[in-house]
């Protein structure tokens, strides 16, 4: 569980699993996931995972961002209107 603080006004509105959430400018999509309590499940065993390093090394923060699967959410700055969804298992591939 994580919480915002008043020292950093949350001015950017994103949606995490369809729910609106405000984060400060400079927060990454992974921060939004942590605030919303959303993680992912692994492609191999479906084990629950969540961000670990927040600096682009561990790849645990994989999420679907604006419809694109398996993005490294900690490297993607939150932008207004961004849609973030949990990555559940292996991504789908194939014709839309």
């Amino acid at each position, binding site marked *: 569980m994580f919480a915002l603080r008043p020292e950093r006004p949350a001015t950017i509105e994103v949606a995490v699993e369809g729910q609106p959430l405000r984060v400060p400018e400079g927060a990454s999509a992974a921060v939004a996931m942590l605030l919303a309590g959303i993680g992912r499940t692994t492609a191999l065993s479906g084990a629950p995972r969540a961000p670990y390093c927040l600096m682009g090394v561990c790849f645990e923060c994989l999420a679907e961002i604006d419809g694109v699967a398996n993005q490294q959410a900690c490297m993607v700055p939150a932008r207004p209107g961004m849609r973030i969804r949990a990555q559940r298992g292996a991504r789908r591939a194939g*014709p839309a």
Partner: protein
Amino acid sequence: MSAPRTESFEAIVIGGGLVGAAIAWGLCRQGLATVLLDEGDIAYRASRGNFGLVWVQSKGLGAPWYQRWTRASAGEWPRLAADLAARTATDVGLQQPGGVHLCLSEPEFEARAERMAQMQREAGNTPYEYRMIRAPELRDMLPGLGPDVVGASFTPYDGHANPLRLLHALHRAFTEAGGVYVPEAKVEEGAAAPHDFAVLAAGRRFAAPRLVLGAGLGNAELAPCFGLAAPVRPQRGQVLVTERAAEILPMPITTIRQTQEGSLMIGDSIEEVGFDLRQTPPVMQAIADRAVRSFPWIGELSIVRAWSALRVMAPDGLPIYDQSARFPGAFTANCHSGVTLAGAHALLLAPMIAQGALDPMLDPFTAGRFDVRAAS
């Protein structure tokens, strides 16, 4: 310093890649006490760069003996896979649903059709089934085919497997059947006489009446010592590997296959650059471009890793199999299709080596064929 004591075996195999390991295990399976000498991590290790196809349809145009040998290997593969699974509890991931070679233009399709027809003619009495399939029907077989795809050639003989699992299983089966595996053992010295060979490696001395060179690109240097020739050169190929995806491709394509774990492997390239293992973005781009033209949905997948590897290539692209005339008992085996030919190497070639004579069906694969060409 005293010389190391001699360790005697019934066969010495040099090279622990897909070729050497398959032969070594095949010899073990024939009951021969075998030692397998493997170089360290510094070796070129073509096996680690293998794409993983068990591929028949493209092999042996103008050389029906190669077509037959490849067909035979694909036929032996299920037995190989089952045997390895039983002995090592390793699933090498063999699937043989048939395979396609995509054509992205009408001239490509026509050229392919001619090639397949010629292969069938050359196959003679051995039935060679294939179909040329046009895009509308192909779309029912392969999901999300790109608009550039005109058609494909299909044969039911093609398939794929996991090359690293295969390598691991061959090694495991070998050691569990009593084979002796010596890593970090580059051959320093060799001595040869008919049916009497000795090799110094890793500070140890090994002797046997049979010796097999399965050291890939290393064979070129080793061969003369044992009265053999292995005129092979490196030929670079680059491969891209994507993130895992839910199962989507029902069969392999010459340059695209989905692994059991779900990643898509995308190849390939043919580059004559010597012993250069660098990756090159322009080639990687061309590979990616063809893949996206074949299946537009592939464009969305992330490439997680890629590599380049050196194929072991004879002047005509066919394998080289020989027994030394000067030193009978010494054999060489070279090819660039270590996965496809693993079935034949373990279950057909190894018994021949154990018996001491290569079957006449392998006569056309002698390195002597290059001397003839040079002379003419």
